[in-house]
C-alpha cells in the first residue's frame, strides 16, 4: 500500500494553533478575484450563494403573489390581463417549488451537513459547484422568459393536452419543461453529494445512532430526490419530444394518454412535498432542543418517522387525481394510504411536544418560529387529512381550500422552520447575531399575516371559488373575503420585509456571535463563526449524540492529517470507523464551463433536436477537462 513519508510531509500534529490555522488556510482558501470565486469548491461559499439566490427567487415569487392578490382583490378587476395572470400563477408555483423551496433546503444541507458530521468539505465538491451553476441557469431561463412575456402559462403542473403541441403554441411550455431539467440536474447532483457525505465522511465515532436528526432528514430527502426526480425528468423530456419531434406519448388519438402525464407528474409531485418538508422537520428537531435545554425526546421514533414518511410518500400520488375517474377500488386504497401518513407526522409532533414539556423553554426568535410552525403545520396536516378523503376531495379539489391547505403545509410547515433556521444559523454563517427585536417583529407580522391571508381561503374554497381563475363575477359572494385576503397579504409581505432588513442590517453590524451563541449541542458549533475554509482544524471524534453538551472540558479530536493538501477522513458506513485519509479536489473552473456547455445544449434542444448531438461535444470536452488529472498533491495516493 502506498504511503506518504510521515517524516517529510507536513502534518497537523504538535504545531501551535496559529501556525496550523495559517497552513490550513494556505491549503484550503481560494485566492481573491472573480475567476477564483467562480472556481471555488468550498461547500460553505457555494451554499451561501445557493441560499442567497433562492431567497432572491422567494422575493420575486412573493412579488408575483402580491400581483395576483391585487388582481383578485375585487371582482372583474382589469389590473392584469388573463394571459399575464396565467403566466404569473404558473411562474409563482414553478418558481416557489423549483427555484426556491427545493434549492433552499438542499442549500441548507450543503452548508450544514458537512459541518454537522464533522468533515471539511462536501463529497464531490466540483459537482456541487456545477449544481449551483445549473440551478442559476434554470432560474435565469425562467425569469428571462417572463421578462420577454413568453413565460409558461400552463400551471406549475403543466397538464397535457393544454401544454401539448396542439394547445400550447410557441415555446412557453418547452421553457417550463427545460427549466425542470436544469433544476432537477442541480437537485440530483446535490442529493448524491449529501448521500455520500453522510455515508462516508462522518467524524470518527458518529455511528448511525449518533447522527444529528437534521442530517438524517437531509439524507432521507436526498433519497426522495433520487427516486422521485427521474419521474419528472422523464415526464418533461417526453413532453418536449411530443412538442418537438411529434412523439405521441400524450395523444389519446394515437395510443397515448393524458392521464399518463398526471401519474408521472404526481409520482414526483407528492414526494416533492416531503423533499421540502423533511428538511424542515430536521431543522425543528435541531432548533427545539437548544431552546428547551434538553436532548430531543424520542430520537429513534423521530428518525423512524422520517424514513416511514419518505417511503409512504411514494404511495400517495393518486390522491391528486381523485376526480379523474380512476377505478374506485384503487382510489380507496389511496385514501387509506394518504390517511396513514398522519401517523409518522403525528409521531414527530408528539416527540416535539414531549421535548418541550420536559424541557425549560427560552423564547428566542428561532424558537418562536418553531412554535409558529407547530401551530400552523398541525392545521395544515389536518386539512391534509381532509383532502385525503376521496369524497371530501371531490368538493374541495382545485379550489381555494387546497390553495389554503398547501400553503399551510409549505409555508407553515417549511418556510417557518426555514426562517427559524436562518435566525439560528445566521451567527454561524456570518459570525454575527441577528436582531431579537426585529426578529420578534418579523415573526409576529409573518405569523399573523400568514393566518389572516390563508385561513379565509379555506372558506372561499368551500363556498365555491376554484383555483387558477384570474377573476370572478360580482354576483358571486367572494369579493369581501378576497379583499380581506389581499389586504392581509400586505401584512405578510411586511413581515418578510422586516426579515430581509434584519438580514442586511445584521450582516453588516450585528453583534459578534462567537462559536456557540445558543449553547447548542451539535458539531457545527465547535468551530469558529464563520467557520474557516477548512471547517475544523482537527476532525472531531464523536462519543455521543450531543457532543458539545457531553464533552464539557475538551473536544476529542483526531490528529495526523496532512496540512499541505486538502485531506479529510473517510469512515465506514454504519459505525464511522476511519478507513482512509482521502484527499479532495482543488478549485476548478471546469464545473462552470461544463454548466455553460450543458445549458447551451439544453436551451438549444428547445428549438432543434440536433442540439443534443452537437451540444454533446462541448459537454464531453468540459467533462474531460474536469476529470483529467493535473498531477497535483491532491491526486497523490
Amino acid at each position, binding site marked *: 500500500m502506498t*504511503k506518504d513519508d510521515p517524516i517529510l510531509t507536513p502534518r497537523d500534529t504538535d504545531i501551535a494553533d496559529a501556525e496550523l490555522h495559517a497552513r490550513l488556510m494556505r491549503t484550503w482558501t481560494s485566492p481573491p478575484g472573480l475567476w477564483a470565486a467562480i472556481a471555488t469548491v468550498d461547500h460553505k461559499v457555494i451554499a451561501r450563494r445557493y441560499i442567497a439566490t433562492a431567497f432572491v427567487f422567494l422575493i420575486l415569487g412573493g412579488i408575483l403573489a402580491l400581483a395576483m392578490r391585487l388582481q383578485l382583490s375585487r371582482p372583474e378587476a382589469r389590473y392584469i390581463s388573463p394571459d399575464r395572470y396565467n403566466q404569473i400563477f404558473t411562474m409563482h408555483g414553478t418558481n416557489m417549488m423549483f427555484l426556491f423551496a427545493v434549492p433552499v433546503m438542499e442549500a441548507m444541507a450543503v452548508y450544514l451537513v458537512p459541518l454537522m458530521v464533522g468533515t471539511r468539505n462536501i463529497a464531490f465538491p466540483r459537482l456541487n459547484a456545477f449544481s449551483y451553476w445549473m440551478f442559476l441557469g434554470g432560474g435565469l431561463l425562467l425569469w428571462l422568459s417572463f421578462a420577454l412575456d413568453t413565460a409558461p402559462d400552463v400551471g406549475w403542473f403543466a397538464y397535457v393536452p393544454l401544454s401539448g403541441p396542439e394547445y400550447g403554441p410557441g415555446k412557453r411550455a418547452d421553457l417550463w419543461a427545460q427549466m425542470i431539467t436544469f433544476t432537477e440536474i442541480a437537485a440530483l447532483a446535490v442529493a448524491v453529494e449529501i448521500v455520500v457525505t453522510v455515508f462516508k465522511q462522518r467524524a470518527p465515532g458518529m455511528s448511525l445512532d449518533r447522527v444529528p436528526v437534521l442530517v438524517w432528514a437531509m439524507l432521507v430527502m436526498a433519497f426522495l430526490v433520487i427516486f422521485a426526480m427521474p419521474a419528472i425528468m422523464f415526464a418533461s423530456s417526453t413532453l418536449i419530444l411530443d412538442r418537438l419531434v411529434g412523439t405521441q406519448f400524450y395523444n389519446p388519438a394515437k395510443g*397515448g394518454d393524458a392521464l399518463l402525464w398526471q401519474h408521472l407528474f404526481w409520482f414526483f409531485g407528492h414526494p416533492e412535498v416531503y423533499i421540502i418538508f423533511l428538511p424542515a422537520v430536521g431543522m425543528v428537531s435541531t432548533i427545539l432542543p437548544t431552546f428547551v435545554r434538553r436532548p430531543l425526546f424520542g430520537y429513534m421514533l423521530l428518525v423512524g418517522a422520517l424514513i416511514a414518511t419518505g417511503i409512504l410518500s411514494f404511495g400517495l400520488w393518486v390522491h391528486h387525481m381523485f376526480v379523474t375517474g380512476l377505478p374506485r377500488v384503487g382510489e380507496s386504497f389511496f385514501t387509506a394510504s394518504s390517511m396513514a401518513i398522519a401517523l409518522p407526522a403525528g409521531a414527530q409532533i408528539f416527540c416535539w411536544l414531549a421535548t418541550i414539556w420536559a424541557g425549560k423553554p427560552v423564547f428566542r426568535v428561532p424558537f418562536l418560529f418553531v412554535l409558529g410552525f407547530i401551530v400552523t403545520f398541525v392545521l395544515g396536516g389536518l386539512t391534509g387529512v381532509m383532502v385525503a378523503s376521496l369524497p371530501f376531495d371531490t368538493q374541495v379539489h382545485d379550489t381555494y381550500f387546497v390553495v389554503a391547505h398547501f400553503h399551510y403545509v409549505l409555508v407553515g410547515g417549511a418556510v417557518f422552520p426555514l426562517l427559524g433556521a436562518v435566525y439560528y444559523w445566521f451567527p454561524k454563517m456570518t459570525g454575527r447575531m441577528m436582531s431579537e427585536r426585529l426578529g420578534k417583529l418579523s415573526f409576529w407580522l409573518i405569523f399573523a399575516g400568514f393566518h389572516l391571508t390563508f385561513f379565509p381561503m379555506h372558506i372561499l374554497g368551500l363556498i365555491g371559488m376554484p383555483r387558477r381563475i384570474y377573476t370572478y363575477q360580482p354576483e358571486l359572494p367572494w369579493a369581501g373575503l378576497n379583499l380581506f385576503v389581499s389586504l392581509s397579504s400586505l401584512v405578510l409581505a411586511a413581515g418578510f420585509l422586516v426579515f430581509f432588513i434584519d438580514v442586511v442590517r445584521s450582516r453588516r453590524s450585528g453583534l459578534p456571535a462567537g462559536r456557540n451563541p445558543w449553547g447548542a449541542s451539535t458539531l457545527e458549533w*465547535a468551530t469558529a463563526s464563520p467557520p474557516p475554509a477548512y471547517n475544523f482544524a482537527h476532525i472531531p471524534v464523536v462519543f455521543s449524540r450531543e457532543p458539545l453538551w457531553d464533552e464539557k472540558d475538551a473536544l476529542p479530536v483526531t490528529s495526523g492529517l496532512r496540512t499541505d493538501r486538502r485531506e479529510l*477522513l473517510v469512515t465506514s458506513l454504519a459505525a464511522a470507523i*476511519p*478507513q*482512509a485519509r482521502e484527499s479532495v479536489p482543488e478549485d476548478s473552473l471546469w464545473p462552470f464551463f461544463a454548466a455553460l456547455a450543458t445549458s447551451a445544449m439544453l436551451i438549444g434542444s428547445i428549438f432543434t433536436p440536433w442540439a443534443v448531438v452537437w451540444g454533446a461535444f462541448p459537454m464531453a470536452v468540459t467533462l474531460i477537462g474536469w476529470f483529467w488529472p493535473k498531477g497535483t498533491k491532491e491526486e497523490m*495516493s
Partner: protein
Amino acid sequence: MKEQAVLDVSRLPLHGMGAASPTWWGTAAFMLIEGSGFALAVAVYFYLMSLAETWPIDAPAPDLAPGTWLTAILVASVVPNMLISRWAKRRQLRRVQIGLVIMTLLGIAPLAFRVYEFPALHVWWDDNAYGSITWTILGLHTTHILTDLVDTVVLTCLMFTRHADNPRRYGDVQDNAMYWNFVVLTWLPLYVCLYWVPRL
C-alpha cells in the same frame, strides 16, 4: 473550545478501494438515479400497453436478430469486464491497459447492432405511442452505452499516461467496470420488454 487529540489517523491509507471510496458510492448513487429512470420507462411501456387494444399498435412485433445479437455481445462483454476489475484491484497495469482496449471495442460493437435495432421495430417514433416509447427506451439505453464508451476511451488514454499507476486510477477503472455491468444489466429487462412482450 479546547481540543484533545484522542485518535491518530496518520497511518491510514490515502485512498480506499471499493466501498471504502466515496467515488464508488457516487457511482452507485448515479446508477440508482438512472435505474429509477429505466424502471419508469418500463412502467410507462406497460401502462401504454394496458391502454391499447392491440399491442404493438399498428405494427408487427420487432425483428429479433439485431437486438438478440446485441444482447449476446453485452452479456459476453461482462467476462472481460469482470477481469479488468480484478486486474485493477491487483494493480496490474499492463493487463488493465489491454483490457480497456478490448472493452473499448466491446463498447463500439453493440452500437453497430443498435443502428439496426431501430428499423427492426417497424414503427417510427411519431407513428403512435408504441413507437414513441420503444424509440425512447432504445434511445435512453443507447445514451448509456455511449457515455460509458466515452468514459472508457478517456480512461484508456489515461492509463497510457504518467497518471496511470495510481490507486485512484485503478479505482476509476473498477468504477467504470461496475457502471458497464449496470448498463448490461439494465438492458436485459428492456430487451425482454421490447422484443418478447409484444410476442406474448
